[in-house]
């Protein structure tokens, strides 16, 4: 049992299927008699829709139907909802424009879906989509975050008279300003947090089928758990009973936040299938996925920090502009406050804090959660500030941090926005990273690099995460007739290896053979009533915690049954390693499960069956944290930056499977490296998307990455029974500030203290040239 229990680097049980081509992604699903969908998308970033003519398209061979926004409206299809309710300081509410599935009067970003065309083949559908004629009156557009609040900027929603969604504030600006003024040292940073495309490798895809006889709609799509989408589709959009809408994701090719959302395409395909009484399939291509998947990040931050003579923080002021796109997505507008705000100002004790957030509309696709969801942005700000503070206070980067960490003695530590840090050894974690990265001998490596004509730099970032959001989740443990045990999860594994980890937990808690446990998830028809899915690094706490609680109920009930059958007092029955023992009598858990099916074998008051379903609940989230140290080399003649060393130390609490957690770290780091070095979603001034393929958008490749040495500093969370802290997003959080720190360190000879991400060779080269000519001048 030890071999498969908690903490073991068990190899994944999902792998053989995926390694032999037996995975089942949505595009692998085809239903007898299906028609194909293609979308007519807006080529304008901002335009009035004057009319639509579908007659030519409808005459093409093989075209089955065309639906535009007007058809959906006429059929009573609802709008995509947003539940945020932020207020301006004067008490007035945020602007909340409705989002139609397909707009009827105005299109507001390039790639917005305007009509769905159904035909007998994918090719015919695409050809017909090109023949649909929309009559537009083009209007000026605004795509730039920096300029969206300019007085003369075109307004995405003219009725509001501004592109500002709301001006949300926390804290007392005048008190913070006074402290900054009085501070011994005052530093400021201006940062662009670049817009990125989450870009799971599986393009978006929907297959929908409707059976009129029982009014049953089934939708296959890559998701991060279907229940919330089912609720939206049934209640808000198609107005059907919940149990008549079923969402199935067998395998999903990456989520990263962006697959947890309801998209217009899903609604349109489902609507078409229902309307036509025929299965409909849409296979998005990569360009469509770039245009219509929600994007991540896209903030501009101005931050100022005041420090005393010892380099201790006295106050922090942070002003954030957030580009939410043309509409309010489900969560986009919340990210600085509820995402980043949870953990801001990072791992540091900040006595006074003012925080201003202005989300703003632009003529671009919405932004929403992307790996880290607000926390990478927040940590990036504090870490850039700490580097600036180190400069200004003439302290080393590690020393300025050490002086300001929230200490273990200060915990539980309440953050400004009302969260409580229960555990974490920030100084210890940083020291582990510095040691593993040989921070103290860096000068030698720099010298050696210099001899090769390279600029070498080392960077450090210490960060904190918030994981396990919405900590409510259903988990069911079911004993099958053949002796297998099924975990029926409200969470949904889309690459995280839940089948493996949950099996380890069942093995640990119930002593069931690892190989006899299987995971059932990804189908709303059999998921527990409470089923939120997997996002926000929550599955270890809510899924693992749920299995733990269900197991306790099973053992308690098992003791009653075993006691009855072994003629012992239930109190006298012990349970260990899958065996109930009373005196000399023993029963395995499988035997008890078998017996429990027969009412005649049960004591009074005990219901048949050993299965249990729990709704795991917790009041609080958990706070993974870590320290990353990166070494880079820059070629000053080309500006090319290469990562040459990477150490990631994570405190993600108790580690359920180090093999899998390391995988999460490596993957997260790569996404952080991508944001730091290569990724940038660009719209031109007219709102045309310039980066809509992997030729134009810089996905990090194997050669952009270096080997990552991942270590743990385990400090179990005190607020959940497994002591876990979610590990999924830490890598993407630590990497960007560590890399920028390393680059600036490398560029010390040129006095360059900041370059905005992505750190492309061109930007680095230009900065070096400017510094050189500046010097010469």
């Amino acid at each position, binding site marked *: 049992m030890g071999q498969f229990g908690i903490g073991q680097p068990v190899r994944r049980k999902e*792998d053989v299927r995926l390694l032999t*081509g*037996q995975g*089942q992604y949505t595009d692998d699903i085809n239903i007898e008699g299906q028609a194909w969908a293609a979308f007519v998308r807006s080529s304008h970033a901002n335009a009035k829709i004057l009319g639509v003519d579908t007659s030519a398209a409808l005459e093409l061979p093989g075209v089955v139907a065309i639906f535009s926004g007007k058809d959906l409206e006429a059929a009573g299809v609802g709008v995509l909802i947003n539940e945020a309710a932020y207020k301006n300081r004067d008490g007035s509410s945020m602007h909340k424009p409705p989002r139609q599935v397909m707009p009827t009067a105005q299109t507001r970003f390039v790639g917005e879906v305007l009509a769905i065309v159904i035909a007998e083949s994918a090719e015919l559908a695409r050809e017909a989509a090109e023949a649909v004629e929309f009559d537009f009156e083009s209007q000026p557009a605004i795509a730039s975050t920096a300029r969206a609040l300019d007085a003369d900027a075109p307004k995405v929603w003219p009725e509001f008279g501004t592109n500002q969604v709301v001006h949300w504030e926390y804290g007392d600006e005048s008190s913070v300003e006074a402290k900054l003024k009085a501070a011994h040292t005052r530093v400021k940073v201006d940062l662009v947090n670049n817009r990125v495309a989450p870009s*799971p490798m599986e393009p978006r895809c929907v297959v929908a089928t409707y059976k009129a006889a029982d009014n049953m709609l089934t939708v296959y799509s890559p998701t991060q758990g279907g229940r919330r989408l089912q609720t939206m589709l049934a209640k808000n959009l198609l107005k059907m009973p919940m149990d008549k809408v079923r969402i199935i994701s067998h395998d999903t090719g*990456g989520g990263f936040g962006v697959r947890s959302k309801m998209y217009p395409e899903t609604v349109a395909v489902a609507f078409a299938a229902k309307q036509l009484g025929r299965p409909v399939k849409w296979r998005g291509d*990569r360009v469509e996925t770039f245009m219509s998947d929600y994007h991540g990040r896209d903030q501009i931050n101005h931050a100022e920090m005041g420090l005393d003579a010892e380099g201790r923080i006295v106050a922090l002021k942070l002003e954030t502009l957030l580009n939410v796109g043309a509409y309010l997505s489900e969560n986009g507008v919340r990210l600085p406050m509820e995402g980043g705000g949870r953990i801001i100002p990072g791992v540091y004790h900040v006595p006074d804090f003012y925080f201003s957030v202005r989300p703003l509309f632009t003529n671009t696709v919405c932004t929403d959660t992307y790996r880290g969801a607000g926390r990478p942005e927040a940590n990036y700000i504090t870490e850039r500030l700490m580097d600036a503070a180190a400069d200004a206070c003439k302290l080393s980067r590690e020393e300025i941090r050490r002086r300001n960490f929230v200490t273990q003695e200060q915990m539980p530590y309440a953050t400004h926005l009302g969260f409580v840090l229960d555990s974490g050894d920030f100084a210890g974690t940083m020291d582990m990273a510095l040691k593993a990265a040989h921070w103290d001998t860096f000068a030698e490596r720099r010298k050696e690099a210099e001899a090769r004509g390279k600029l070498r730099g080392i960077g450090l970032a210490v960060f904190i995460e918030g994981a396990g959001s919405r900590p409510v989740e259903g988990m069911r443990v079911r004993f099958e007739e053949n002796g297998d045990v099924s975990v029926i999860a409200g969470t949904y594994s889309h690459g995280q290896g839940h089948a493996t980890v949950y099996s380890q937990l069942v093995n640990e808690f119930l002593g069931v053979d690892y190989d006899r446990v299987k995971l059932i998830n990804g189908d709303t028809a059999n998921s527990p009533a409470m089923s939120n899915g997997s996002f926000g690094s929550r599955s270890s706490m809510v899924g693992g915690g749920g299995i733990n609680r269900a197991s306790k109920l099973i053992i308690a009930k098992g003791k009653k049954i075993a006691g009855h059958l072994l003629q012992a007092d239930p109190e006298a029955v012990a349970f260990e390693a899958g065996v109930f023992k009373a005196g000399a009598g023993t029963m395995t858990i499988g035997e008890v499960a078998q017996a429990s099916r027969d009412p005649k074998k049960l004591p009074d008051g005990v219901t048949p069956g050993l299965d249990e379903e729990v709704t795991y609940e917790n009041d609080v989230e958990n706070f993974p944290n870590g320290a990353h140290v990166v070494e880079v080399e820059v070629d000053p003649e080309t500006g090319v930056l290469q990562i040459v060393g990477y150490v990631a130390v994570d405190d993600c609490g108790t580690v359920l499977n180090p093999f899998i957690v390391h995988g999460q770290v490596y993957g997260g780091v790569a996404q952080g490296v991508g944001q730091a070095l290569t990724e940038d979603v660009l719209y031109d001034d007219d709102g045309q998307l310039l980066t809509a393929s992997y030729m134009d958008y810089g996905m990090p490749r*194997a050669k952009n990455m270096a080997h990552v040495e991942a270590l743990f500093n385990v400090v179990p969370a005190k607020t959940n029974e497994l002591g876990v802290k979610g590990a999924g997003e830490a890598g993407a959080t630590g990497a960007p500030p560590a890399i920028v720190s390393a680059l600036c360190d490398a560029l010390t000879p040129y006095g360059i203290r900041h370059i905005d991400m992505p750190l492309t060779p061109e930007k680095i080269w230009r900065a070096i040239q400017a510094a050189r000519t500046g010097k010469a001048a």
Partner: protein
Amino acid sequence: MTIDVTLKVNGVERSAKVEARTLLAELLRDHLKLTGTHVGCDTTQCGCCVVHLDGKAIKSCTILAVQAKGRSVTTIEGLAQPDGTLHPMQEAFREHHGLQCGFCTPGMVMMGADIARRNPGATEELVRHELEGNICRCTGYQGIVEAILSVANPDAVRKDHH
């Protein structure tokens, strides 16, 4: 206009009627229902679609089905032994956590097998360079690089963790 294409797929002769413009990836996925080969992009960048054509790795989204006429294709479904014994590269991916969501994986494994075949004794740097045409969004490439190295050059696999 449809064209008859006969080719060997995973050792078995298969025929299909395709359009002149049909890609090999489409032939495999849509006509032969071998959905292990994935399509992740429209621009020959991602490598999710890599198969072996006459023993060499190619992007099946980038050649026409008719170009494979009379030739021999191996897909991810045909890599393991008929008795289910995994190919060493499949085994290595499992051992080194070379996959998470699994979407890039068929292309990565087919590419990895080709890299190892062509470069015995490969360095980590070479493997990373060779993976230029394969994108993975989940793994950070670390397990993939280790898996390929473990076949091509076991001594080069770093030992700083499991």
